[in-house]
């Protein structure tokens, strides 16, 4: 049996109905994780670990804290308050510590003595100077799991490469393959298109959580260990079909990857997506179309023939879709087992009965904005979305609780550290 985490950090209090959630919905309760994350990938990983119940202590540079606090999209222009940072950091504890000073590094060591996992995106070249060289950390903390998450990993010829979201997306192969379908038809000469936001980095973060939890599972048997996670590797993994097809003799590109028919359809009041991979789904679509003569042509009962005549089918589908209303189409189509979905705007998602029924958003208190619903987690454990402890807080908001109450450093010492720019 896995031992429970020792000397647990002061956990965040959960608010409202969340407090009744079962412990199964917080499977990492009792683990203390130190997060040193300048980028989105590691911040997202920490966010997932926190919502699973771990006490995640985010270590930021003294002063204004992480640059992500001012990153787009914004909750407020002046001062710049980042919606991205708030989303990525809800539920964590916030301490500041300057690792460029010896006292700061000693403080981090103290924290790691009481933690089970370090999640770190410090560039490889910078680590030794901050006492974050993995071998040295392992000597000091043999039971600690050290998860390194970098754009291109901690080892290999590109380990020192710098990479932001756009670079990571293109390093993993999916960037080259975007867009397809209607977007590509309309703009075939434009450069490859990125996926919204920080998709590729969040894939890296999700992969890091898989590694972190796996290493915690193995910890009883092997103790701590270093785990090298690369956002590029994670994106290569989720894009694995392109590598498989290369082995089959097909080098995919965005111009040939499009589905031959279906895809994005413009309706009278928005967009739907439609995709019929199975014969019965096509037959359902024919019924949804009202069985027009062109769709009853015996030749296109054959799926290969449909592929060959995809352009013609699309012309019919697009003409028809423009006369339809999105919600009605989705409702009637799904009743006929036709896979289609509305291209939901944020407002649609927030107001959808499906969203409410699943409890996907929880209120958080944001300074100056009051109570705002925030997306909690992309998973439900033990029958519910896990509780969201609280909103992100200012840099160093938990300095007194962590450095003082938990680690036992008195107020005068903390004041001195503050004057010295250590915390």
């Amino acid at each position, binding site marked *: 049996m896995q031992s429970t985490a020792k000397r647990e950090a002061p956990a965040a209090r959960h608010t409202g109905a969340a407090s009744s959630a079962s412990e199964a919905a917080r499977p990492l309760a009792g683990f203390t994780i130190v997060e040193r994350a300048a980028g989105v990938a590691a911040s997202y990983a920490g966010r997932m670990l926190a919502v699973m119940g771990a006490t995640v202590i985010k270590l930021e540079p003294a002063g204004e804290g992480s640059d992500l606090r001012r990153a787009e999209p914004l909750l407020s222009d002046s001062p710049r308050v980042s919606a991205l940072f708030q989303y990525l950091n809800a539920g964590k504890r916030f301490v500041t510590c300057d690792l460029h000073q010896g006292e700061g590094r000693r403080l981090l060591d103290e924290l790691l003595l009481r933690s089970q996992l370090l999640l770190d995106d410090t560039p490889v070249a910078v680590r030794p100077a901050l006492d974050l060289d993995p071998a040295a950390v392992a000597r000091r903390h043999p039971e600690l799991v050290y998860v390194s998450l970098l754009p291109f990993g901690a*080892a290999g010829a590109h380990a020192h490469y710098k990479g*932001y979201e756009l670079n990571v997306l293109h390093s993993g192969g999916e960037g080259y393959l975007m867009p397809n379908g209607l977007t590509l038809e309309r703009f075939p000469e434009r450069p490859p298109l990125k996926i919204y936001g920080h998709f590729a980095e969040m894939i890296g973060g999700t992969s890091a959580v898989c590694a972190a939890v796996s290493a915690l599972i193995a910890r009883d048997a092997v103790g701590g260990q270093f785990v090298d996670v690369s956002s590029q590797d994670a994106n290569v993994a989720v894009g694995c079909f392109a590598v498989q097809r290369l082995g089959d003799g097909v080098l995919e590109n965005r111009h040939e990857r499009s589905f031959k028919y279906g895809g994005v359809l413009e309706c009278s009041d928005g967009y739907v997506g439609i995709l019929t991979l199975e014969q019965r789904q096509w037959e359902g679509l024919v019924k949804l179309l009202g069985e027009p003569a062109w769709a009853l042509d015996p030749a296109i009962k054959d799926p290969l023939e449909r592929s060959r005549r995809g352009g013609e089918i699309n012309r019919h589908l697009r003409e028809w879709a423009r006369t339809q209303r999105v919600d009605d189409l989705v409702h009637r189509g799904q009743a006929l087992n036709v896979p289609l979905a509305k291209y939901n705007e944020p407002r649609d998602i927030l107001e959808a009965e499906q969203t409410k029924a699943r409890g996907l958003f929880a209120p958080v208190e944001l300074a100056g904005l009051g109570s705002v619903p925030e997306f909690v987690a992309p998973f439900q454990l033990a029958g519910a979305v896990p509780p969201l402890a609280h909103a992100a807080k200012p840099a160093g908001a938990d300095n007194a609780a962590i450095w003082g109450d938990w680690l036992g450093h008195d107020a005068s010492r903390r004041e001195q550290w503050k004057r010295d720019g250590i915390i």
Partner: protein
Amino acid sequence: MASSDARGTAKGRGPLEGVRVADFTLHAAGPFCAHMLSLLGAQVIKIETAERPDIFRKPHPVYGRMGAASFDQVASNKLSVRLNLKQPRGVALAKRLVAVSEIVAESFRPGVMERLGLSYQSLRETKHDIVMVSISACGQTGPERGYAGYAPLFGAAGGLGTLTGYADGPPTEIRHVMDHSTGLTAAMAVLAAYLHKRRTGEGQHVDIAARDVACSFIGDAMLQFAATGTSPQRAGNDAPGLAPHNVYRCAGDDRWVSIVVANDSEWAAFARAADRPDWLADERFRTASERWRHRAALDAEITRWTRERTAEEIARRLQSAGVAAFPSYSAQDIAEDPHLAERGIITPLASAEGEQRKVVGAPWRFQRTPARIERWTPKLGEHNDHVFGDLLGLASNEIRELIEAKVIY
């Protein structure tokens, strides 16, 4: 404890060694989840029937060609058995498999496992501490729980596809990466649930909706909308305030490089590395806000420079100067990249025909508990004898009779 070879690669048991997964998943998202668990060392038994095999195993013509184009990579590393769940004896055998497993994974439409007599509640009666993960389009609850879907539709419903596209264009399909990111998220959640079981003895049911996963990738936009009433719109490759931030045409056919400059010092480094001091003197590009305002002109300038050079040369030169640049990798680039080979994410594997193929391996490098890909895609039912005989203890004549009765089918 693991040892290391000359390359520093850990040898030893994966972190999930000794864990068995009864894998009822189909298509892409669910199988990818189970595949991740197999890379971590779990023994994953894929359960299918010849009556209705995984559609991704069957050739399908959506891309205009017939072939199982989407199967091998997520079925590799697994064991395969045939089991007809429409027969009561098939269901009984499935329960025996669950009884010797720690994790159950399924990706039927909500309600199907229940109709088969394999709901979480009934499997709990078979094994009280079972951890079960269900992966579906919209989840096990809510009015849309029965909705059918594939990757682009998950991206649509969850808003990710809506926000992806050009400012003057339609929303955009998110393809297999949407399936597989759902599978990766499911793996993350079920690992946590399994760890909880190890610590407490308590199993649970994990519910993953691809729609919710897509929404998690736009959590920042959702929060901005909820707080302010406005949200980001489709914006092509733009990232507000950042320029250069684009994909630039290079020498060669359909060759591109991604370049991102996040601050003034990176901009200065870029201009110096490109040997273009005139860019630094240009008033339009002097500050971040000016570069953003004049990004179309800036992109045109940069393209004039990049299209004379290869993407690889540009990436090397800019990275040496501390600027984030990387070629837009095709699958060929990925397969041939020494960095990825060194990390083991691209690795050779013998196919069923004995051909050495490059495949995508495990995306993690554990120092002591290595994750790895070891076996090619199994044939349907390839491991019937091992699983039903060695594992469940059925005699060979019993197995034969079950095959004749189309239970093992």
